[in-house]
């Protein structure tokens, strides 16, 4: 090996040539497979292997819409459970709150629940929880 240092020009030229050679690539699937076989690799095994890898990574990828949906459902379920905190208010307050939220949700929903006087306390609480959940979901979508 010579002790001479490469000049700046030689270094630049070498770098350009190496970069060019790094990017010399086979173009067709047949050429790719032939080069891999020459390296002692089995292209068919490789295809199978990467399909398995892609499937596994995709199953948990944040870019996968199924994963995104699962996360949304989980978040909503948690929010729903959080909304189930004990209610320390009167029957009249609950009815007022239901009417307010029903109006927010639209007239059809409000009219469907106008006979609040006949509902049991338990039904009123349940209705209020559902409405709070739905109104919360509406706000998130906005």
């Amino acid at each position, binding site marked *: 090996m010579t002790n001479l240092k490469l000049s700046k020009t030689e270094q630049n030229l070498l770098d350009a040539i190496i970069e060019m050679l790094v*990017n010399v690539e086979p173009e067709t699937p047949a050429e790719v497979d032939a080069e891999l076989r020459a390296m002692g690799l089995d292209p068919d095994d490789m295809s199978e292997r990467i399909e398995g890898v892609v499937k596994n990574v995709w199953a948990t990828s944040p870019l996968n819409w199924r994963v995104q949906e699962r996360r949304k459902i989980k978040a909503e379920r948690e929010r729903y459970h959080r909304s189930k905190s004990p209610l320390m208010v009167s029957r009249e307050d609950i009815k007022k709150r239901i009417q307010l939220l029903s109006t927010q949700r639209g007239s059809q929903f409000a009219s469907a629940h106008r006979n609040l006087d006949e509902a049991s306390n338990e039904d009123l609480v349940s209705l209020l929880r559902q409405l709070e959940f739905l109104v919360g979901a509406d706000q998130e979508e906005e």
Partner: protein
Amino acid sequence: METEISERLKGVDWPFTYKRLVLHTDKLIFYRYPRFRSGPGSQNLALGLTSEDIAQSAIEKVISGRRSWPEGLDLFVVLKQVARSVLSNLVVEVAKKPEFLLLDNEDSPINAVAQTEDQSMEDFYKERWQVIQEAVESDDDLQLLKFAIEHALDLNEKPTRSNLAAMLEIPPQEVTNQRRRLDRLVRKLMNDKLKTVKN
């Protein structure tokens, strides 16, 4: 936006992309990271990794969204950059744990080189320079190709295939053929040299 990426990822021919990326990674190691190669034709790198591991890692990063794939950009170009970055990080890891370097296949010629002298990157590039010059001098067309690359650099232009084709007044496909020929020659000469060192 993410739905668009999701759709694009679903449309990728992964086996073909992966196999191309393995070949590219192997070439990158051969030309840029010589000390990671444990022998001619070998797929084993430092830390017990292979070219396939590097390519898989790059693909995993893009599918998992850890590395972005901007719309309109060729996925293979992105993956090549990611593979390069994975290799650079591996260099850092190996620098911390030099005992893992060239761990496997102790009889390989490159190990003989590594064991007999501490081959610095400067030496490596000098050696590559000699081999490339030797390859170029053996073929008139390759000499012209080298002159065209030099000329492009003098003009502060990138020696792209189309630039070189225009300078040499040959079809772009002929530039591709010449590049391939040079690649084959350099690899052969390098492997012959390694065999000589071994013997």
